[in-house]
């Protein structure tokens, strides 16, 4: 069925770099697992299409010839009438059982074992951590760790600008992997269940908070492979794409060196920036960028949040939500007993951004944002959206808060 209709629908599938030859095929597979899956998928679809066509033909034959308007007289049998008929009537089920357990069952057995064999011969480990709504990629041993967030502008999502080719499937920092190496992928989550899916790899594995899951890939062709989160994880579910840049071994080594240098430079810059005292205007300008990239998905570009889920940054607005979240906000001094958002104490504000609020969607940004980023975004928040506290937070204050948090 699917196979046949596919012929008609072929013209409707827009061309894409990763598109397979036929619309009933998965995007061109580039890993052993994906190739095996495509092969099995094609066998299945062929089998069920044949079954569908054969059985439908029998039915249509009956509908045409056994109709009252053609003068058909109804038979009265209610079961196989002879031993031969009884034996013949078991044939379809024997065929089905054979297809189930031999044609499908045996390749599936091997595929399950191959899929589970994440460790033998693996040359590298990558840790993928899902969080609302971005991915964190970490290369243990190489000391590289970064966040990968969507870069499609809000204007394109809201139809205010023409959509580009990779609409919703572009990120600031793709996962970079070497080709022809078996890579063990460890999955974790910081909040809810996500699912890491790259169709060209034939891999979809859930990232589950509190547990590690693993899978593996061995990519045989350099290129950019795109996918996205496949488990509903809240309002940003459609906006956490997975982009993998598969490169040659040499390019990968160069990338690693560059990345390590960048992290070093970022550390040095962090130290340097922490020593500098900035003006309010400088901080607000930098802070706005940080806010757009990290905070606006939940608290909205308007700073108004989403009622019941994400509190406004703008003070003076009523906010009600689950009791736990309100209690946490009250404890930190960000909401009045009447349920209105207020500007809480600066120290408390810094700690919320650094550590997040456990039990609520607010994630910790201490690991992903620099002292300067945090200082500037807090200054921005306290002097925008109608807030005019005049508070200025300097990177050194953030550094001090970090140090205080590390003391037992």
């Amino acid at each position, binding site marked *: *069925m*699917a196979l046949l209709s596919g012929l008609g629908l072929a013209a*409707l*599938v*827009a*061309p*894409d770099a990763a598109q397979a030859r036929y*619309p009933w*095929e998965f995007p061109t597979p580039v890993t052993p697992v994906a190739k095996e*899956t495509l092969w*099995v998928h094609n066998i299945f679809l062929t089998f*069920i299409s044949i*079954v569908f066509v054969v059985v439908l033909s029998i*039915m249509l034959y*009956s*509908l045409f010839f*056994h*109709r*009252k*308007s053609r003068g*058909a007289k109804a038979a*009265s049998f*209610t079961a196989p009438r002879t031993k031969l008929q009884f034996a013949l009537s078991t044939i*379809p089920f024997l065929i089905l*059982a054979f297809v*189930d*357990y031999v044609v*499908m*069952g045996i390749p*599936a057995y091997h*595929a*399950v074992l*191959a899929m589970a064999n994440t460790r033998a011969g693996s040359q590298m480990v990558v840790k993928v951590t899902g969080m609302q709504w971005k991915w964190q990629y970490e290369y243990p041993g190489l000391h590289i760790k970064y966040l990968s967030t969507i870069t499609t502008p809000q204007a394109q999502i*809201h*139809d205010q600008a023409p959509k580009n*080719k990779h609409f*919703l*499937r572009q990120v600031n920092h793709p996962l970079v992997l070497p080709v022809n190496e078996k890579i063990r992928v460890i999955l974790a989550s910081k909040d*809810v269940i996500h699912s890491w*899916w790259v169709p060209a790899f*034939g891999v979809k*594995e859930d990232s589950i*908070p*509190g*547990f590690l899951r693993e899978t593996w890939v061995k990519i045989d062709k350099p290129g950019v492979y795109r996918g996205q*989160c*496949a*488990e*509903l994880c*809240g*309002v940003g*579910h*459609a*906006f956490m794409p997975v982009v993998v840049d598969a490169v040659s071994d040499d390019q990968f080594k160069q990338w690693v060196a560059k990345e390590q240098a960048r992290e070093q430079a970022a550390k040095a810059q962090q130290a340097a920036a922490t020593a500098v005292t900035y003006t309010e205007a400088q901080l607000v300008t930098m802070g706005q960028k940080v806010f757009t990239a990290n905070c606006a998905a939940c608290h909205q570009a308007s700073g108004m949040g*989403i*009622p*019941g*889920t994400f509190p406004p940054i703008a003070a003076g607005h009523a906010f009600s939500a*689950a009791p736990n979240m309100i209690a946490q906000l009250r404890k930190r001094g960000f909401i009045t007993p009447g349920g209105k958002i207020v500007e809480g104490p600066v120290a408390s504000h810094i700690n919320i951004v650094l550590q997040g609020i456990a039990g609520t*969607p607010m994630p910790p940004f201490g690991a992903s944002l620099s002292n300067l980023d945090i200082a500037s975004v807090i200054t921005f928040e306290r002097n925008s959206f109608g807030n005019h506290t005049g508070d200025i937070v300097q990177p050194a204050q953030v550094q001090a808060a970090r140090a205080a948090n590390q003391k037992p």
Partner: protein
Amino acid sequence: MNAAHAHEAHHDELPRGITRWLFTTNHKDIGRLYIGFSVIMFLVGGILAMLIRTELLRPTLLFPPEIYNQIITVHGLVMVFAAVMPATTGLANYLIPMMIGAPDMALPRLNNWGFWLLPPAAVLLVMPFFLMLFGIGNGAIDTGWTMYAPLSVQGGIGVDFAIFAIYLMGASSLLSSINIIVTIFNMRAPGMTMMKLPIFVWSWLITAFLLIAVFPPLVAGATMLFADRHFGTHFFNAAGGGDPVLWEHLFWFFGHPEVYILLLPTTGILPHILSTFSRKPIYGYKAQVYSFWAIGALSVVVWAHHMFTSGMPVAAQLYFMYATMAISIPVAVLFYCWFATIWQGSMTFETPMLFALGYIVLFGVGGLTGLVLSDAVADQQYHNSYFLVAHFHYALFGGPVMGIIAATYYYLPKITGRMYSETLGKWHFWQTLVGFNLTFIPQFFLGIAGMPRRIPDYALQFAHLNMLSSIGAYILGSAQLLLVYNLIQVMRGVGKKATTQVWEGAQGLEFTLSSPPPYHSFETQPVIQ
């Protein structure tokens, strides 16, 4: 016939107005309430479906994503719990006493309570949408109908409303299941042995046992979820020693048999319809009954095939894969019997027969693609993609919904005493068939090309097929208005009077009673030879 007239005289003593329906203990009144409720909720769920397809018509955001998530979640919950389940329960209430020669259900007051728990449940599901308009809470449940923790622990008051709706619907289902089992075991006419039960009655007996087996774990899970949300427990919180995957197991231990709870009653009604319009007895009665048992038994041991990407150990993946494949055999037996029932018959194609044949074709696609999904590794591609969405709509619309519509047309003249408009019925069928396939065939290809489900906005390569699917959905949705119009006309008394047998080839005790049947089906039990 004298007896029947005497019953009609009793109608005058019935309470009039709302109290008749609030306090009724009559199986036919309660059956009609269930069916009416189901039609209303089918329209509510249908409107939500139209909103979903409107959002997906083009790659842009019409609704904020949080509203979209609420729409898909409530669409799923309403369709499963408030549209399809009440419809099959309504058919059971109306038909089982007539089919087995009983005056009424065994536990009539329980029956009344079972129904009246449902409307409050539906209100609980939908109400948060309206509360949000008044600034209370952040809308309905938005976690997907699967309510996976910890997302459902994070959610707003909509989740709590849904948990209480599940309690009410669970209690309602358990009461009606107990009633059905007790009725079938105790109220059969003399001579009606178990293996002479009409096949629809058999299918509901298995369904009732399944409901009693699997609804309590869901209610237990929902209670754990509620405790996690409000009382600081950690059943699904790994930081406190809990496990989010535990919810998946509890949910699917209910959720997979639920598919068969929706499906089985319609696989029971189908042979009656096929046999009537082929003027030929049901083929393979025993084989079908044994298949029901096999499907019922297997359905409770395959749940984790919904969780192949959750990182289960190899042994569990293999077990759940092979166990799932086993279900294809008894289901294939049912298909075989359906084909053999119409084979060499003398067929006519009234609306119920068209929907029954449409059922076979569409549910066939759902079943065959389900076979493909059972492969644990290939499932890594299909899982949570639009391929899955298309598959389960073929299985659940193609099966239960088509079956319920077929049964509605089949029994409408019996229930109301009036024939519906055959022309409109046929239009309804053809428009449904075209609209349905146009909606869901493109979704198979969307899934294969890599589009995940439950996203309000999508990458550009999915744009053409989504537009096609949305156009199909509008055709499918508007077709259902023909059904509603037909129902209203018949209820108003338009259409020619139906005979006692209604259909030329109809068999069974229910077709020995007048149309509409007397208020108490059989006061003197018929004797079955």
